């Protein structure tokens, strides 16, 4: 692991005004190094998902600043951020979120087709590769809504990997998976961070998963608690 900063969050404050004014994130600051495998833990309602949406650039309604790969993203336009996400961020949502009218394969290919840097054939081959890695080869041509919850979650993981993003974020990416598949996903994340220097930020409730990552940070009522290094 080198010491280049991959992601830097400084003094993030976030409020919700509905149903009543309420501060969800309180002065959250931290850095993640390139190739680091970071897990984010905390009680339900502590603000983990909210923080991840801010980090993923999808939520722009916050105070403080966000930098990824040295580029300041706070204040950029929605379209600039969309293009940035497409190329640099892979995101696995808490509740899968596949396009139901498309096949598993098409779901995985879409971000790459949008990026348009590789030929269709190459993209298809890569997508098959990822699906195979996640034990989904048989499901590739099935429509997304014909898959089980766990299968959909793994398709979403494959989709997050397709553009080789520098940062991969997951909101409980293994929440629906059995221990065998959780292990598969964990190993993939570990391998990507080690071999390709891709940064991983994953929210998890799984203690084993967290313990085996490079570093764990904990949110409590919107405050960042402690920084620990486990399982190094």
């Amino acid at each position, binding site marked *: 692991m080198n010491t280049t900063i991959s992601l830097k969050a400084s003094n993030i404050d976030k409020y919700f005004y509905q149903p009543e004014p309420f501060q969800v994130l309180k002065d959250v600051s931290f850095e993640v190094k390139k190739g680091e495998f970071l897990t984010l833990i905390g009680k339900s309602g502590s603000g983990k998902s909210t923080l991840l949406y801010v980090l*993923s650039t999808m939520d722009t309604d916050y105070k403080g600043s966000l930098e990824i790969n040295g580029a300041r993203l706070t204040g950029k336009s929605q379209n600039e951020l969309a*293009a940035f996400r497409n190329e640099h961020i892979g995101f696995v949502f808490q509740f899968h979120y596949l396009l139901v009218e498309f096949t598993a394969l098409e779901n995985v290919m879409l971000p790459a087709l949008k990026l348009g840097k590789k030929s269709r054939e190459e993209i298809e081959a890569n997508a098959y590769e990822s699906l195979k890695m996640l034990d989904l080869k048989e499901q590739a041509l099935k429509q997304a809504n014909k898959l089980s919850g766990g299968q959909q979650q793994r398709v979403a993981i494959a989709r997050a990997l397709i553009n080789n993003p520098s940062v991969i974020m997951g909101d409980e990416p293994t929440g629906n998976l059995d221990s065998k598949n959780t292990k598969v996903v964990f190993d993939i994340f570990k391998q990507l961070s080690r071999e390709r220097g891709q940064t991983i930020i994953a929210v998890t409730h799984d203690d084993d998963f967290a313990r085996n990552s490079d570093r764990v940070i904990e949110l409590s009522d919107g405050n960042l608690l402690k920084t620990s290094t486990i399982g190094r």
Partner: protein
Amino acid sequence: MFSSVNNKISGVHLTSNAKQTVVAVLSVTFGISMYVFMNSFMSGVNDAQTKLAFTALAHVRVYNDGPADNTNLLKRVLPYGKLINLRNAKVIQYTKGIKNSTQIVSLLQHQPEATGVTSQVNINVSYHNGAIKINGQLSGVDVENENRLFGISNYMLQGQWQELKSRSDGVIIGSGLAKNMSLKINDNLNLLTDDGVAKNYKVIGIFETTIANTDKSKAYINIGAARQLLSKNADYVTDIQLNVKDYSKARQTAGKVAPVIPYKVEAWQVANGQLEAGSDLRDIIAKAVSLTILLVAGFGIYNIMNMTVNQKIREVAILKAMGFSGGDITTIFLTEALIIGIVGGIVGMLFGYVVALAVNHIPFAIGGLTTLPMTYKPSDYLLAFVFGLLTTFVAGYLPARHASKIDPVTIIRG
């Protein structure tokens, strides 16, 4: 923005919700086919009406308008400032009809847009048969050219139009006139000009234009016979009638030749304002009704597109989260609307043609018609298609823009 990914997504939307797509396409089809049909029908009615009108009416008419304004003749010869007292001025001599007709006919024939020129000697007469006396108009005609302009031979009930050429004693009369005067073929018709000359002709034909006034009062003789009746020389005519390629451009032709012709040159619209007004009004009605139908179809598409966007709000949020821009989203939904518009437009043009054909076969035997009239103009189809696309574009753009503004995080957060 116009990438193949976006097109692919549009394609999946259209095919995975085929029922909705078909309903949207049908609403465009309905709008466009009604546009085509309404306009074809109105054009047909207008054309039938015009055709009927032009059986007795040329596009441009040249005639002697009577003496000029001669109320103060002395003004021209006496210096200004002289006081004159002129009372009861009378025109004691003026020339009726057109003198140098050959020259004018040749000038008109050489207009590139001219399709036919004919000379007439029209005379007001009273027809007599025993005790019956009817006022009417006797037309001395150039048999060939008269037929070329007005197609009168198509309206012959009895006898041959061409026979008039060789029969200087022959007359062809309207069916109404024949009935009112109890005349049959080969009967004699006695007539009296307003100059008091009386002459006998033999009825060699009877025509019926379905324009009652014409049929009741008009009779044709050879132009030479008419000159003889008036004791005029071979160059004398009262009217020169000109037809042009496009009757709606008669005014331009009249305006062009008027300066070099020393007589009144009148386009048909001037003397028949009601025909033009009727035809214009029908056009306006057709346009208004068909555009209203298109507008209703547009609302249909708008509703369906709005529904589609609302159903796909989660999907739009995911696409945006994965990096699709607002422009991509607009393109995706607009492409869907335009495909619906194009398919609906093509089917609509075909269906409109079929409806027009079907209505064109409905019997309608009034005023010289046999079936309901219909005109097949490519421009109607083109306009329907263009208006249809325009409507779908607007109806698709509003929901598409709404979709492009969706904030992904508020949707995904749930």
